């Protein structure tokens, strides 16, 4: 075969030589294998797989697409302030935010639904998202809710719950039978929803307390890892909202009350860390830990400025719960990676979309006599 050939003859593929054809065939097989493995890894060969895009698609199917807004917790307002650490957290975590001192915080209050124009009285869960920014560039972001337990244990269950909550095209309302079937298949969700309903929501954002629900791990300077959950506990006294308001009053009454409250005096919350004991579930956000677990108050959050969502403020932050500093680590809670993934898709979609002003606007100048309406129970707050 290798006798004298004219120069370049080995590069000629025509007429085809059996050996060349075999070589091309082998090359093709290797390429098909690599490309196929790539397509499989990217989920292109498994249309039923629950991907992060399909997860956010379901939020959009449930709430509609509202360009420029978060796909969940869409209606919100920006706040800023600072966190004063008392140093008590350093025995649990080496994160800079827990060293004694003060760090700036950029936050966002929101209601837990993907409809940015929903009247406040049709919403239930309130949330607070926070970004702690100690010097040095590390950051701690957390998104917390004023409920005692999360309704689902896994992202798959969340996806099913959204499906069960969707309006039936025939009636325009959710099908109770589908919700029954979901709860029968997920007793942990039925239990968590019972806990959520057992305690009335507070009258507003200011006197609500917000829970991490997911477990995390604090890692201290000695490398000791401790399972934790955290709460931002309102200094304003809790007042139950009973019964839930249903009259069509100010559609933004929750936010307007918050703005009015903040224009009187800064808001304060105590950051309380609950320490899990061995055996306490860290992978199940539907289960609160027993009430007798050790709690450590590690500092106070003060929020003293409120502004409408706009370019470069809280609007453009993805409050991904896995943006964590050294010293705070994820637990084995399956919701954490899923939240991180789904938030990323929501953020990427809305970042590229045209923005519409939020329903929640903060009056430019506010005189003490011209405040937004304050709900009666809010007047009982501390100064």
């Amino acid at each position, binding site marked *: 075969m290798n006798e004298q050939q004219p120069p370049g003859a080995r590069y000629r593929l025509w007429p085809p030589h059996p050996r060349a054809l075999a*070589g091309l065939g082998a*090359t093709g097989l290797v390429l098909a294998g690599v490309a196929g493995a790539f397509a499989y890894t990217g989920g292109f060969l498994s249309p039923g797989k629950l991907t992060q895009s399909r997860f956010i698609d379901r939020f959009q199917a449930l709430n509609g697409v509202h360009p420029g807004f978060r796909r969940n917790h869409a209606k919100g307002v920006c706040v800023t302030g600072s966190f004063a650490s008392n140093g008590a957290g350093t025995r649990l975590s080496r994160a800079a935010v827990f060293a004694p001192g003060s760090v700036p915080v950029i936050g966002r209050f929101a209601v837990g639904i993907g409809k940015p124009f929903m009247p406040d009285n049709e919403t239930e869960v309130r949330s607070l998202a926070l970004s702690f920014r100690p010097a040095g560039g590390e950051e701690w972001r957390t998104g917390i809710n004023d409920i005692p337990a999360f309704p689902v244990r896994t992202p798959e269950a969340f996806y099913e719950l959204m499906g069960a909550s969707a309006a039936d095209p025939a009636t325009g309302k959710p099908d109770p039978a589908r919700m029954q079937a979901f709860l029968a298949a997920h007793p942990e969700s039925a239990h968590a929803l019972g806990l959520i309903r057992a305690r009335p929501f507070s009258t507003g954002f200011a006197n609500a307390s917000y829970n991490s629900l997911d477990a995390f791990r604090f890692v201290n300077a000695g490398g000791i890892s401790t399972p934790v959950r955290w709460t931002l506990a309102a200094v304003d006294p809790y007042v139950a909202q009973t019964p839930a308001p249903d009259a069509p009053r100010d559609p933004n009454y929750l936010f307007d009350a918050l703005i009015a409250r903040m224009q009187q005096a800064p808001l304060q919350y105590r950051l309380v860390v609950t320490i899990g004991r061995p055996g306490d579930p860290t992978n199940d956000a539907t289960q609160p830990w027993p009430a007798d677990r050790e709690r450590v108050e590690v500092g106070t959050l003060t929020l003293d400025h409120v502004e409408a969502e706009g370019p470069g403020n809280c609007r453009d932050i*993805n409050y991904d719960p896995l943006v964590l500093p050294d010293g705070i680590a994820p637990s084995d809670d399956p919701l954490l990676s899923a939240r991180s993934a789904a938030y990323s898709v929501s953020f990427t979609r809305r970042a590229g979309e045209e923005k519409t002003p939020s329903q929640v606007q903060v009056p430019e100048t506010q005189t003490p006599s011209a405040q937004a309406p304050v709900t009666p129970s809010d007047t009982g707050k501390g100064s």
Partner: protein
Amino acid sequence: MTAQRFPAFSRLLHWLMAAMILAMLFIGIGMVASLADYHWLLSIHRPLGVAILVLVAVRLVNRQINPPPPLPADMPAHLRIAAHASHGLLYALMFAVPLVGWAMLSAARYPIVLYGAWQLPPILPQNDMFYAWLRSAHTVLALALFAVFLAHLAAALTHAFVFRDGVFQSMASVRRAKA
């Protein structure tokens, strides 16, 4: 026979980066499709991307110091052009994909955590529209890198199995190159 080989350091860089880039492409396409594996894959993706960016710079310098062996004298012009163009494209993408990734995280104002408290500074100011554009560019460029990688693999195997001109052996040989 003209059995010239790449210098040993060049071959080491090539195969190290081949493994890293192939792993990176699979990590990238896998993590954006996954809920459960997203976080741990992302925590590998960022430092691995930075390592690739550093190594491609080392490699470009090394290429000037230790030039590659010449292509076979009888290789036709169109194949030479394809070889040089695809290598140029591979280098461009090996720089572009990690740099766009870094820029996109900067525009989104994500902390760019490598490991523990180690992080990179931002290289762009915060801008959500920049982020959206760069995020798409990162995907498009990464898919282009995968396509050029496939073409490179196809060419390498064709040199090995069909042309049998020593080009594949010039990189695939594990023996020390003859001076």
